[in-house]
Every structure is written in C-alpha cells, then in structure tokens.
C-alpha cells in the first residue's frame, strides 16, 4: 500500500532512534555497574571496562547515562503528549467552531507564544516547585500553543470541504466529525510537529535541569548530568562529551524521522 511508503530518512531515523530507545529501556533493568555506586577507579578515561570512563567519585558514566537518559526520554515523551493532545483539542475547537471561542483562545495562545518558552517554564516551575513531575507539567503547558496553532489551520481548512459537509448532512455528531472525519487528515502536520516537539522537549529539559530548575535528586536526567559534568570538565571531559553525544544522537534520530515524514507528505502531494 502507498500509505506505508518509507524513505531513506525515515528508515535511518527509525533505526537510529530504535537503537537508542532500546538501549535506554535496557538501562531500566540492567546497567554494567550500579550507576550511583562510588569506587576507587576515579576519573578514568574511556576504556573497555568503562566505555564512557568514570567521574570523580568513581561512578561508571556509561551506566549513569543509560539511566539518566531514561528520565529525559520519559519527560520528553510525556511533554509532547500533553502538549499535542491539549494543543490538538484547542486547535480542533477553534478551527472547527470558529467565532468568539476562536478569537478568545487564539489571543490567549498568542500571549503564551509571546513569552520565551524557557521563561514561561521557569514561571510555572517557580509556582509548582522543581521535580520531574512539575517539569513535565511546565513543559507540557509551554508546548500547547505551537500544537494549537498548527492543528487549528489543519482543522479550519477542512471545515467547508465537501466531505465534512456530507458528514454533517448525514447527521454525524461534532465529536465524530472532529475525531473520525477530520483528525486523520491532520496527522500529516501533527506527526512532524511532534518529532520537532520531542527534540525541543529533550533540549528544554536539559537546559532546565542544567540551570537547576529541572529534575531533583535522586532523579538523574541528561541536563542534570551535564551540569554535574560541567564541574569536572577539566578532569573528566569524557563525561560531558558522552552525555552530549547521546543527546545529540537521540535528537538527530528523531529529527530524521520528522524529515522523513515531511518528505513523504510532499511525495504524496
């Protein structure tokens, strides 16, 4: 079937992201060393025994990254889920019903977009307090407006199209029209937006934790480790580099998927 047509970007992205995600999931169950256990093997460079080396407390960085990236992945996935689900609901309501509701919600949306996203997240965190859950909530809220805007256009452009008029004439309810008739036709904009959002969420979590307004111990995330690595950048540069490399690979893999999806859309058109 045409629908499942793949392209090079999509294949490469899925393979790369798949490997990293499997590696991260494996980290939930098995790590070569206990990621929090200190040992006498301090500040060792990468070797066969410690692939990413050790930090100044003798902890194995490979094991720490395996676990810490899991936290980041969970935060990023939940963030885009909150952002895209809420954003799509707002976009669907404003795009389909229009009128006063559209005006009000979209002006609120504009106001939210006008804030730099990290600043908005900072405001929310200062109200809720730091911690993994609150980071997810804060970033989720920050991500709503961009999805609302993207999906609003996709819903509004279908409003007057004949197949929607037909659906209304056959007596389909508004919720059925929105979910069953319209939503599948917004996926071509929603899915690439979700991949871009995922990458932004990974980077936003990293920056927040780096600034100390993100996850709190005992949770460990990529950003948290980066800020830790900053303190030992001279004595153990491999720490920052290995964390950065994993972030970069994850973002690159998901970015490839997004690019692949967009190219596939163009081919279909």
């Amino acid at each position: 079937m045409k629908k499942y047509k793949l392209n090079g970007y999509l294949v490469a992205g899925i393979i790369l992201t798949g490997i990293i995600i499997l590696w991260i999931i494996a980290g939930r169950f098995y790590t070569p060393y206990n990621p929090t256990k200190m040992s006498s093997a301090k500040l060792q460079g990468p070797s066969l025994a410690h692939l990413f080396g050790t930090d100044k407390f003798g902890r194995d960085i490979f094991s720490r990254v395996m676990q810490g990236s899991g936290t980041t992945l969970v935060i990023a996935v939940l963030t885009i889920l909150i952002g895209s689900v809420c954003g799509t609901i707002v976009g669907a309501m404003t795009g389909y019903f229009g009128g006063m509701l559209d005006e009000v919600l979209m002006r609120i949306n504009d106001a939210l977009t006008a804030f730099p996203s990290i600043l908005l997240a900072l405001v929310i965190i200062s109200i809720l307090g730091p911690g993994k859950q609150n980071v997810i909530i804060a970033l989720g809220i920050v991500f709503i407006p961009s999805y609302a805007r993207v999906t609003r256009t996709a819903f509004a452009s279908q409003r007057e199209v004949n197949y929607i008029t037909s659906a209304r004439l056959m007596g389909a309810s508004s919720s059925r029209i929105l979910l069953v008739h319209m939503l599948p036709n917004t996926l071509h904009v929603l899915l690439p937006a979700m991949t871009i959002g995922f990458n932004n969420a990974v980077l936003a979590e990293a920056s927040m934790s780096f600034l100390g307004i993100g996850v709190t111990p005992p949770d460990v995330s990529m950003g948290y480790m980066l800020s830790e690595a900053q303190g030992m950048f001279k004595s153990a540069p491999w720490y920052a580099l290995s964390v950065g490399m994993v972030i970069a690979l994850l973002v690159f893999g998901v970015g490839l998927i997004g690019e692949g999806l967009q190219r596939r859309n163009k081919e279909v058109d």
Partner: protein
Amino acid sequence: MNDNVDRIDDIVESIAPVLGMESIEKAAEPPEVQHPLVLEVKHVNGGYRTPGLIGRGKYHQVLFDVDFNIRHGEIMGLVGESGTGKSTLAKMILGMEKPEQGQIIHYTKRPQIIFQDPYSSLNPAYSVEWSLEEPLRVFGKYDEPERKRRVREMLARVELPEECLYAKPSELSGGQRQRVSIAAALIRRPRFIIADEPVSALDVTIQAQILQLLRDLREELDLSYLFISHDLNVVYQLCDRVLVMKKGRIVEQGTVDEVYDHPKEEYTKQLLAAAQ
C-alpha cells in the same frame, strides 16, 4: 421486502435538528403515497451575514421570493450564472442555512447532495468502503453484515467493481469518484437528491455516463432530483422542468420544452443563445 424496510426507514428516520435543520418542516403524514410533491419552496427570501465584530453583522440578501415545487420522480433543472444564489438555495433546502422569510417543506426524508468536485467530496484518509459505510454507521440502525451488504449492493448499482471498495479516493479517476459520491449520497435511500453541478468537472464522455447513471437510478430507486447546472445543454438532456435564476430571483420556470422552445424572458433567451 427491502422496499418495505426502506418505507419504514422513511418514517423512522426523523429529520433530526442538526445544525439549523429546524428550518425544515416535515409534513404530518407520509404524503408521497397520496401527494405528488417531494419539496415545496414557498416565497423564500434569504441571504447571509458578514460576521460583525459585535452583533449579527451586515445582511446581504441573496434570494428574493423564490417559489417552486418539485414533484415525485421529477428532475428539476436549476440554471443561472454563477453567483446568482443557486448554491445558497441548495444549502437552504438541505437545512444548512435558514431562510429569512418563507417556508421550505419536505415531504420525504432528509435530502442528500452530490457535489461538483469529486476530489473533495470523499474523505482522503479512508477507503471507499469506509466512506460508503459511514452514513449507515451514523444512522445506527443496521449491524455490520447488513451494512456491508448494502454497501456492496449500492456499489453494483453505480456500476463499480468490488475492488474499488478497498481503494483510497486518490487511487480513483474523477468519474469513479463521482460514482462513489453518488453511492454515498444514496446509501441511506433518500428519495430526493440535490445534484450541484455533478458533471461539470468531468470529461464529456464521462459526463454522458454519469448522466445516464443518474437517469437509471431515478427509475431504479424512485428518486427526484434538483439538478443545478450552468450548462444548458446538459439540463436539456436530463431534466423534465427547469428553473431559470437571475440575481436571486426565479425569472422563468416551466417544462424544458416550453422554456427552451419559447423562452419568455430576455435573460433566458440570452442564456440559450450563449449555449448554442
């Protein structure tokens, strides 16, 4: 047997008050038995409002004292230049817009529409089978095997092979899509169909096939049509009576032969001359 079931559907399926359907008034008795009318449009005035910042906005009248009726089994043509209010009239008959004054009375169950553009009348995300089954799913009176059976029966009526069921609209030709749209409009067995320029986006040979199909379906399924077109030749081939519309008014109506052979209005003469 089947026909009996559909008669009952006629009565069972109420014209639900969906999105402005209030403007449709249903007669008390199922009258197609005694009554030859399927639709009465009585002195309808109507238009649209440009949305204002506050309040209801400015009113633009499009239809002026439109008055006609359609009889059982008849194909009524509606001709006129674009922008004369033909589509607004169709929307009012379908209950999507309300007349400002006047009455629209339906003597059958809710009419369905066949659109001009076969490319936008089918949902691109779904297969033909899904699109044909959806009106029945929404109706909610039939179980799945019965829905599938009706879909296949209707597909055969519009002369499409069964392979088409599993195709997406993008994989079909314009003529095939228009056949699917016709099937989708007819799947719930309406008695009255509005066809809004159904062939003007198609090649001439395909046009002739679709017109023949519409004619055949009228006999087989006991239909009446309001056939909107700007093509007077097509209307001449297909219709029994014709309405000539100019700037929101019906300026002339009568049987096709009367109007084409002895046009009374200057405007009708002009249209006919332009169509030669």
